[in-house]
Structure formats: C-alpha cells, structure tokens
C-alpha cells in the first residue's frame, strides 16, 4: 500500500505549482508576445527567434533613429526607415520594434506594403531606462534585417512598480 500523501501546505503548493507548469507549455508566452516579457539572447526561445521563426537575422538595411540622450522616457521620438524599393515584388512587410529593458519587450509592429511607397515610420515611444532598442524588418522575400540604436534615458518611463 502506498503511503498516503499528507495534505499540508508544502504539498499543496508543490501540487499546484506542478499543475500550473503543466498547463503552461514552454513558449506559451509566444502566443501573446505583447503581454509577457521574454528573453532576448540567453537561453530559451528569444523574442527575435519568435519574430523571425528562426531565420537568420542580418544587420543592415534598417535604420532606427532615436535620440542619443532622452530626457524623458515617457515620450521618446523614434524614426524607422528601411532601405527597400517598396514594389509589388520587393517590399517591407512588417517592422517590429523590440526593447531590451521594457516590461513589454515587443513595443510595436508596423505593417507596410507596396501601397506604402516607401518604408518610413515615425512615432513616440516609452523607454524604461537606458537601453538598446532593436528594429526587425521582414521583407517580402522572407529575409529579416536588423537595425539598432542605443539610448540613454535620464528619467525612465514609470512602467515599473519600483
């Protein structure tokens, strides 16, 4: 006869943790990349791998302009441009903006097409501290290109509880 498992605090916690882990398969976050932070580099599926589907990411063609020094992280002007003729056969499909330190890593995705005429986006972003910001562009031929910018933020956006 197997020994009955005592219902105490530790076992209940262990069991519930096991159930939680079983219910959350690895990479479950990937289904809602906007909602959960995710590692870039290091171990596990990186956000960039998720964006590219494991395809190689090459540096170039994407230009990400952010101020070198941003006084207020709550609103930082950002300009993105991709070197592309934007024709029916050769255009930018989507540009993802990825943060190194924000609690929500995938900041925004912009979908373009041949109707855009050129690949240039401007917006204002929130940055939780000094960091490197990445822009990943997917072309119509399936290649992925990366641009990056380093920003020093004097006053971080209040997006942490700290």
């Amino acid at each position, binding site marked *: 006869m197997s020994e009955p498992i005592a219902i105490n605090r530790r076992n209940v916690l262990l069991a519930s943790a096991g159930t939680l882990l079983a219910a959350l398969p690895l990479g479950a976050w990937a289904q809602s990349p*906007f909602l959960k932070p995710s590692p870039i580099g290091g171990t596990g599926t990186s956000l960039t791998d998720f964006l590219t589907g494991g395809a190689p990411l090459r540096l170039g063609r994407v230009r990400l302009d952010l101020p070198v020094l941003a006084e207020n992280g*709550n*609103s*930082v002007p950002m300009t993105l441009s991709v070197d592309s003729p934007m024709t029916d056969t050769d255009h930018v499909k989507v540009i993802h*903006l990825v*943060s190194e330190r*924000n*609690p*929500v890593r*995938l*900041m*925004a*995705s*912009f*979908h*373009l*097409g041949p*109707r*855009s*005429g*050129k*690949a*240039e*986006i*401007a*917006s*204002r*972003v*929130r*940055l939780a501290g000094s960091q490197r910001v990445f822009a990943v562009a997917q072309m119509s031929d399936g290649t992925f290109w990366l641009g990056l910018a380093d920003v020093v933020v004097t006053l971080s*956006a*209040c*997006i*942490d*509880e700290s």
Partner: protein
Amino acid sequence: MTARVQVPARIARGDVIQVRLLIQHPMETGYQRDDTGNVIARNTIRTLKCRFGGQEVFSAELSSGVAANPYLQFPLRVTGPGTLAFTWIDDAGVEGTHNQPLEVTG
C-alpha cells in the same frame, strides 16, 4: 477617443505622402497606481488599421511601449482621391474610428 490626421494640402496622383495621426488615448501601462494605491488597469490601443479605397494600406499593433496619445507617421502612395478610414481598438474593447478625405489634384 478623438483623433487628428494631417495630410499634405496639395497631393498629386502618384505622390508618396506622409500621413500623420494623433489619437487621444492614455495608453495605460498597467504598472501604475492611482492616488489610493489601486493598480490602474492596462489600457492601450492594441491594433490600428488604415484603409484607403477599400484596401488596407497600413496597420500597426501597439503596446504600452508607445507613448500616451500615440503619434504615428506612415507613408502612403496616393493612387487617386478617396478617404483614409482609420479604425482602432483598445484593451477595454473600445473602438475608435476616424475618416480623412484626401483631395487629389492632377
């Protein structure tokens, strides 16, 4: 939710213009607390679409990484007169729309 759109006053057929859009929205991150210490629920614009002549010409997925009162500038090749139809939806499920006619000369 109100929005403002800026387009060039004079557009010729075939021009690539920059469409500038400003939406009034707090883009609450969900990490901030109000004066009484309660967490303010996350409420950001999730998706934004722009159609022109019945065709989607631009769309974006936003998050709390975009500043409050989101400003967006994107390019568009104008093939003829028509209306830019913007639609967006936030976490609270509130939908917003804005229409901007484009006058084309030549």
